[in-house]
Every structure is written in C-alpha cells, then in structure tokens.
C-alpha cells in the first residue's frame, strides 16, 4: 500500500489530502496516468513529485509503504 498526498489546488480537486492505494512497484508516471486518472487532475503535469519527502523523477519506482506527494508550483515566502 502507498499513500498519495495532494496539496493546494490538487487537494481541492481531489477533495482530500490523502489517498491510499493498494499498489507497489509502479512508476510515478504509471501512478499519474493509470491510478489517478479518475480524478481528472488537469494540473498534475505541472506538479513535481516527491517520494518520502524527496523530489523524484517520472520514472522512479514506488515501493510499498512509500509516501508519494504531488507538489504544485510552490508559492511560499
């Protein structure tokens, strides 16, 4: 199982902060195109991805227990 976190406008579109999915061994790209397709997250392509609080690439493989976060363009400061 993995946890997927959403922030800012993605969180509002999904309607929740966190989604738990029964998957492992998939890539970030797979996660976006297959597992999250139902949410119709138009802006997800402009988001960065973090796995366990570190920025990760599209082809990174997600292991069981990982926390995957979608990071829309940041605007702190």
């Amino acid at each position: 199982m993995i946890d997927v976190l959403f922030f800012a406008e993605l969180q509002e579109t999904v309607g929740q902060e966190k989604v738990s999915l029964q998957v492992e061994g998939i890539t970030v790209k797979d996660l976006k195109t297959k597992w999250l397709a139902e949410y119709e997250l138009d802006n997800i392509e402009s988001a960065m991805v973090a796995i366990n609080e570190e920025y990760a690439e599209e082809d990174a493989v997600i292991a069981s227990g990982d926390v995957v976060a979608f990071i829309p363009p940041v605007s702190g400061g």
Partner: protein
Amino acid sequence: MMEKDFWITDQPIEINDVVEKVVRPEAGAINTFIGTVREFTKGKRTLYLEYQAYAAMAEKKLEEIGQEISEKWGDAKTAIAHRTGRLDISDIAVVIAVSTPHRKDSFEASRYAIERIKEIVPIWKKEHWEDGTLWIGDQKETKSYEENRPAKEEIIND
C-alpha cells in the same frame, strides 16, 4: 523555545525567536528578511492569504537551504520560520535570519534563501481577493521545471 532552526508553524512568528538562533560571537552581521502580507498587488486588493505546507518536507527543504548557504558562504548560520494558515494584511509569513562575520555575505545569503524558498520549499499561498480566490503557482508560466524538478539556480521574480 523552539528546538529547530528551520520550522513551519501555524502560530504568529516572533522575529526575535528566529534571530536568536543565529546570534554568535563570530558574527558581526545578521541579515533578516521578513515577508509580510501585502494589501495591493498590481491594483488588486488582497483581503487575506491562506498558506498551506507539506510541513515535514518543507522543514527538510528549509534545512537544505541552510546547508547550501553554509557551503556557498562559509561561516554562515541560517534560521528560517514559515507560517501556515490564515494570514491577514501585514502579518508575517516568513522570517529568514543569516549571521556572518562580515555584512556583505549576510545580505547575499539572506537573498539566496528567499529565492530558494520560492523554488524548492513545498508551501503554497491562496489569495483571497474581494472577487474570488486562487492558489498561486504557475498562472503566469514564469517557472520551467526541467524534468519536473526545480533548477538549482532558477530565479523567480516577485
């Protein structure tokens, strides 16, 4: 007293709490950058802001900025606090403090810190105007992420 030198909080930030972290005998200069909520941006009136953070990762990234500063400017010590939740006009969103032996470095390092926050730290601002709301991000397409990761030295204008 806060244990960390880099922290996210939903409480008002006391400037002194951040500055105290970097005061030391080796320092002759402390530069502090304070980001406050501005009422008007390009003629549009902000009623209040809402900040959201991926707090655990944001604190790690703030600490990473502190490490980058130590590598670039040698004898520099950095502390950063960022607030989340609802902020009204003139409320403090972020306080950066950098101490260095000589003043030039403190200005440069503090400037570097705020630019990096706007590049790599997972914190988001939602504008609440009189006529609507918007999560601020890439509306103006001012950012270009190579392979969806922030470039090391990318500078975003404010």
